[in-house]
């Protein structure tokens, strides 16, 4: 039996970790891409890549996990719909749970993007796993496009997260 307090704490943590995750996503896309380009124009790896990006990526990827886990918990404690619990009703896009379900699907794709293409490519770019210059160049392009896809998906995701549970369509 879930409690009102545990639901409120989960919702609070969902929003806090979501701000951490999407805030860093926007930092990477709106600030870091051009900043790194300018800072490393002479070909040398600058302090941003060495000191800032690894730390930002740490909070970025674990923020994504925390956001998803708290969101999954919040869906699971929703009242059942069409014989399904809230989590399954949302991901099954059932009736009134469809809007938040679309948001949940978008968020899930984004988490997979973070831990898949973005993180796996960043490990090569940052030298955490061995890679040739050619592999690093390819990894840069993959990480960039995956990050841009997440930025694009964050726009409808936030719409459905904010309006889905609180405002009828």
């Amino acid at each position, binding site marked *: 039996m879930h409690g009102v307090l545990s639901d409120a704490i989960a919702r609070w943590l969902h929003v806090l970790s979501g701000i951490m995750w999407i805030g860093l996503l926007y930092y990477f*896309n*709106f600030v870091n891409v051009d900043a790194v380009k300018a800072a490393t124009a002479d070909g040398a790896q600058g302090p941003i890549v060495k000191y800032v990006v690894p730390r930002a990526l740490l909070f970025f990827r674990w923020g994504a996990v925390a956001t998803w886990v708290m969101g999954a918990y919040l869906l699971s404690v929703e009242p059942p*719909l*069409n014989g399904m619990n809230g989590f399954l009703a949302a991901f099954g*896009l*059932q*009736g*009134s749970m*469809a*809007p938040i379900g*679309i948001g949940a699907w978008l968020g899930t794709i984004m988490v997979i993007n973070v831990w898949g293409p973005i993180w796996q490519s960043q490990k090569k770019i940052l030298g955490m796993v061995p890679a040739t210059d050619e592999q690093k160049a390819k990894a840069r392009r993959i990480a960039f*496009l995956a990050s*841009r*896809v997440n*930025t*694009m*998906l*964050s*726009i*409808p995701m936030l*719409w*459905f997260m904010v309006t*889905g549970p609180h405002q*009828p*369509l």
Partner: protein
Amino acid sequence: MKNPLDSLWGTIICGVILTVVLYYVAHALVGSGAA
């Protein structure tokens, strides 16, 4: 053809278009579902 995700504005416009499309998808799903 240039990839719209290469520019920030292209990314934002794609996101807004996707939001509008998904809004109508959600609207249809809510209308067709029970409860």
